[in-house]
């Protein structure tokens, strides 16, 4: 297996983008080409979940490869729910590591705001079990709410801990010009004041409005290259050192312990083991906080904190920029946004910037090891990536 490097990264604003899905995808690709200086790729993987359903666009990879004038490079679409982005990176990794290709472009893109929020919520809910969950009206917010309720009872997590995640990640998003949400929120405004319940109403109790990520459009790109190609690129050597993936039961209620995210645990262990890294070695992480509770739970499953102690670390400020292990410096899904197919690539984009030292106001000092967790389904298909800066 050959070493695989992050040669270039690009991203669009995660926001409402009233443009064709293929253009959103291609723009992030152009940004990454400029970043790397590369003008060609051997292969293109495009991660997307809803093009057919939301945008009447099939064959997205074929459209994007032509839009970027990369023909006759091969092009394929990767769909793995909200983990599509990291799954596509995994495919790109294998293509370069195996020697099949030297330069692979991985793009994630989604255009969800073409439909209203009810339709978008329904679209995401199609990843739940069709007969055991979906037909009973289960949506991702409701699954997350049930998960949160159990977590609260078992570990003492409170609504204030969830709000602390939201406030932290929206603060980080203020430092990221590509983030969807650029508004400062406070505990007074969303929890403590008399008007807080109207500012921050329940979406699916106990989850409130500011516990849920926004519905976003956006694209992100990561160009992966072999060591030989990387030598010609004037960028710090950031290596994709570990890739892990694991699955869990489709229906959440079939899990022996629904508060255990076993796929996160296993995918993280695989990824870190492959990279030869311990959780305590990680300097910066992007975790899949589609709901605030997930950042807390994933931070434990990944091994940053003991099970049931993630919220205590949050209280101590350990996950803030400047803390022991800064989490979601980009703003995360909560603040940066969650265009589902683009999210995993967007997480990698942030980590590559951090390891290069290019994250500007949100830069984590001396970051050399970065980690991403891209969470598909409700934890039934998870892909984790570990990046290491070499020089």
């Amino acid at each position, binding site marked *: 297996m050959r070493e695989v490097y992050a040669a270039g990264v690009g991203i*669009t*604003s995660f*926001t*409402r*983008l009233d*443009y064709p899905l293929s253009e*959103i995808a291609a*723009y*992030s690709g*152009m*940004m990454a080409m*400029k970043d790397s200086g590369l003008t060609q790729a051997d292969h293109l993987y495009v991660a997307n979940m809803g093009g057919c359903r939301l945008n009447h666009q099939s064959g997205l990879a074929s459209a994007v490869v032509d839009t970027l004038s990369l023909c006759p490079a091969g092009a394929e679409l990767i769909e793995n729910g909200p983990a599509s982005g990291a799954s596509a990176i995994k495919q790109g990794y294998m293509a370069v590591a195996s020697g099949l290709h030297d330069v692979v472009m991985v793009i994630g893109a989604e255009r969800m705001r073409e439909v*209203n*929020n*009810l339709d978008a919520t329904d679209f995401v809910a199609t990843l739940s079990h069709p007969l055991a969950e979906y037909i009973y009206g289960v949506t991702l917010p409701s699954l997350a709410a049930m998960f949160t309720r159990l977590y609260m009872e078992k570990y003492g997590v409170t609504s204030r801990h969830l709000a602390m995640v939201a406030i932290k990640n929206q603060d980080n998003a203020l430092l990221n*010009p*590509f983030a969807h*949400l*650029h*508004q*400062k*929120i*406070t*505990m*007074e*405004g*969303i929890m403590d*004041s*008399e*008007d*807080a*319940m*109207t*500012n*921050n*109403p329940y979406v699916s109790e106990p989850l409130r*409005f*500011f516990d849920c990520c926004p519905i976003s459009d956006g694209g992100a790109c990561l160009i992966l290259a072999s060591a030989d190609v990387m030598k010609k690129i004037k960028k710090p050597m950031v290596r994709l050192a570990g890739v892990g993936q694991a699955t869990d039961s489709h229906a959440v209620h079939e899990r022996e312990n629904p508060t255990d995210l076993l796929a996160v645990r296993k995918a993280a262990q695989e990824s870190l083991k492959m990279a030869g890294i311990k959780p305590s070695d990680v300097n910066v992480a992007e975790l899949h906080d589609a709901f605030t509770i997930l950042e807390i739970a994933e931070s434990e499953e990944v091994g940053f904190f003991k099970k049931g102690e993630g919220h205590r670390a949050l209280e101590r400020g350990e996950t803030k920029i400047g803390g022991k292990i800064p989490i979601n410096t980009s703003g995360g899904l909560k603040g940066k946004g969650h265009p589902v197919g683009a999210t995993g690539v967007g997480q990698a984009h942030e980590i590559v910037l951090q390891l290069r030292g290019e994250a500007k106001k949100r830069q984590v000092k001396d970051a050399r090891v970065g980690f991403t967790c891209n969470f598909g389904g409700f934890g039934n298909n998870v892909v984790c990536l570990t990046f290491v800066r070499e020089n």
Partner: protein
Amino acid sequence: MAIELERILRPTDTPMAPYQPKYMTVASGEAMVIRQAARDEIPALLPHVEPLIHVDRDFYDIVAARLYAELLGYYKYRVQDEYVLVAQINGELAAIVNGRRVTADVGMSYHTLALRRGLRLGAHAFAAKMEYHFEGLGQKEVLIVAESPIGFKRWMIEYKLEKRFETPHELGGVPSWALTKEIYDKAKESLVVGKRPVPVEFLEKANEAILPPSDPPKPPADLVAARRSKYDPTGYFTN
């Protein structure tokens, strides 16, 4: 002669109860005052609305253009029984809403313009507008249309409005929806907030001057840049 002509052109306003100012804490933790804007304050509002006419995003352009005209119509006495409410945070303009009394029973909602995003300020301002129609003017229903998907989601779905498609709305040929007193009463507890009286220092600050919004949606330099700026607010790709 000019005065005679003006008398003909100028509608006679019906006496309307003034909107009683209120204040609330918004998600940022700041206090926001919502109060009625006097006619002579309209020139102070216009410079903050005009730039948004050029923001081709989330329908800011059409809402700002129409609101600008409605504000002028109010200022120059060309619309009967119009009112304007402003929302201010530390004096800073945060939202504008306006509408009109059509009859004793029916109100006409015009526009809602939020100048800070993501804190549900527009929702608070819209709720204040409905509060004025039902509790200030004692009306039975308000006719509403939406010009943006966000507006549609917020008003038609969040409030569960009734269809009044057979009734034209003054903003154009789009179907009207109605917020009835019954719907308002159901929504009031969860959507209409605010306390009265407003502390003197808050009200004085609001009345002292309408300060410019600190972070309004900004118009791009040109149309090509408009498209690019949505993708890349840093200008990285084009520089």
